[in-house]
């Protein structure tokens, strides 16, 4: 069955979104009951994923639509909610799952976990536990690319809440001043942990702020992966052509709580239900079917994603723990204990 090109692209985008969803769902399950976070008492039987887990469930279209316009040598900085970005940039779900399980074979050898998931080999420079901290790092990486005359760009993801932190201003100003190759992407899920972002944000939101710095921006439906893809394609091309930074404002929704152990009870249940009707996976699937792609073909992708993630879980489960001595590696002079 030969599909016309556009459907092939949407299928590809759908495939990555589905992989992310399956990964997040599996990680969430593996984290149940064991996280001593969010005011809960420490559990006697630790879950397989012990640490705080910020799920991007419902926001897959932003990561996927943007990263579809990046090449391997392009760079990316992420947030605390970084699984989607990492997978979309091309990381291996099994090595990611190993990291979440705290295994020696994880990307960070068990040193980072979910909040610091990274795959430098595909240019994914790391999730970050500090809101907005990726912004200056992204501008610096872009500055290096420009100084080194490399043809690549940096995608810098952050949330709506991050736009109220100082580094947002400092980083955007910097990128525009030096005309750096960075695509800023605001994943606007309209909430910051338990606080609606709107009332905490002055003015007409993030795009207005970018505009005040003369950074051209586009606003898109962040649940429509094709819309994100198209906008990212336009903006990334401008950035790549040396036009300086661009800004993408993608409006989306967080289906889950702030972390996996957060039931999110501060939100109206109906609001969540309504939002789920715009699930980016449902939207993409509907489009595919509407355009004549057989349901079986889409189902096959779902099945493959499920298998892939099941395999990742099995790999992670069987993977070795780090040695205690590894705690003294990746840092100067501590391996011998001499400088303890």
């Amino acid at each position, binding site marked *: 069955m030969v599909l016309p090109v556009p459907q092939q692209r949407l299928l590809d985008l759908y495939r990555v979104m589905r992989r992310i969803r399956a990964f997040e769902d599996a990680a969430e399950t593996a984290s149940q009951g064991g*996280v*001593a*976070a*969010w*005011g809960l*008492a*420490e559990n006697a039987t*630790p879950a397989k994923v*012990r*640490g*705080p887990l910020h799920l991007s469930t419902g926001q897959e279209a932003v990561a996927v639509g943007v990263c579809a316009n990046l090449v391997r040598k392009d760079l990316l900085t992420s947030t605390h909610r970084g699984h989607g970005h990492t997978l979309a940039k091309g990381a291996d779900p099994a090595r990611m799952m190993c*990291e979440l399980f*705290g*295994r020696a074979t994880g990307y*960070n050898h*068990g*040193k*980072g*976990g979910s*909040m*610091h998931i990274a795959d430098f080999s595909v240019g994914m420079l790391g999730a*970050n*536990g*500090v*809101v*907005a901290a990726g912004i200056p790092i992204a501008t610096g990486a872009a500055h290096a690319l420009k100084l080194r005359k490399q043809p690549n760009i940096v995608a810098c993801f952050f949330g709506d*809440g*991050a736009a*109220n*932190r*100082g580094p947002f201003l400092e980083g955007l100003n910097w990128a525009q001043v030096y005309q750096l190759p960075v695509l800023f992407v605001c994943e606007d899920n309209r909430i*910051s*942990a*338990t*606080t609606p972002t709107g009332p*905490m*944000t002055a003015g007409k939101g993030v795009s207005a702020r970018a505009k005040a710095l003369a950074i051209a921006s586009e606003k898109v439906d962040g649940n429509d992966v094709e819309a994100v893809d198209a906008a990212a394609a336009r903006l990334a091309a401008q950035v790549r052509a040396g036009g300086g930074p661009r800004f993408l404002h993608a409006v989306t929704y967080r289906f889950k709580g702030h972390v996996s152990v957060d039931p999110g009870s*501060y939100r109206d249940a109906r609001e969540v239900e309504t939002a789920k009707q715009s699930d980016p996976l449902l939207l993409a699937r509907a489009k595919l079917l509407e355009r004549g792609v057989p349901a079986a073909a889409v189902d096959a992708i779902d099945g493959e994603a499920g298998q892939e993630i099941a395999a990742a879980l099995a790999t992670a489960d069987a993977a070795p*723990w*780090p*040695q*205690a001595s*590894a*705690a*003294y590696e990746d*840092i100067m002079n*501590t391996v011998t*204990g001499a*400088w*303890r």
Partner: protein
Amino acid sequence: MNAPERKTAMHTQQMTYAEAACLALREKMRADARIVALGEDLGRGGVFGQYRGLPQEFPDRIIDTPISEANIMGAAVGMALAGLKPVVEMRVIDFALCAMDEIVNQAAKNRYMFGGQGRVPLVARMPIGIWSASAAQHSQSLEAWFAHMPGLVVAVPGTPADNYGLLKSALDSGDPVIYMEHKELWGLTGEVTVGSEVPLGRANVLTQGGDLTIVTWSRGVSLAVQAAASLGKAGIAAEVIDLRTLWPWDRETVFASAVKTRKVLVVHEAVQVAGFGAEVAASVAEHVGCKVARLGAPRIPVGYAQVLEDESRLSAAKIEAAARNILK
């Protein structure tokens, strides 16, 4: 503007470390309308429940803020100068690093630099410590930094009773207080004497003993008591001292114990190198001239996997081993 003060009769009650903080703050807020609390997500009672119930009782004085640590802390300085007593919630100390100019150059120096024209009576709460699998950016303990900084008071409660009593004293201090609750103690239950206060600068001697002195604070307290119990079974009598505040710190109590035991072990969760244990050990060595030893974390970031995290964690067994070592 002050609400009529409600006198609380003294009685004891079991509660958690988090509940103790809530109660202390509630009492103080009822008594003094100048007290406000500000920080991210406070409107839902704080991410550790340490403000639970307060948003309902004081809807205008528990203030939800944008994610703007620098401005949260800087605004608190301005609020204090303009007559309020702000409680500033930094969520975890790691994020307070986004507000260091405001803490160090503004809050701490204001009174001195302006020759006493103003005071900055704020309480900056910045939970410290390792917290199951939260890795390098959510597990730090930086009490030594603030002890080093002129103008700051530093409190490090290790029990519900002290979290209750010290928070109240902190709100009376008149100067900026770095108030460090430990993230793994929120659920710890203990007896609290409602109506009491714990003065700044006074240590608590938890066990008496003549063989060695163990000086500790925060997360170290219950572990040191455990270690002392185990040593006791082997006939070794350890005197466990909880400093409770690191600035001012109770040198008299520590020195008196050191004179008695001639062996002082300082225990803390923070990195050992240039930790506050160095200050205590150096002071004891200078002023008493007895044997000293320290137990702190190795100079590595806290890792995510359990086995890595454990390298940075305190434990009763590690304390006991260090105690036996100094007794050799």
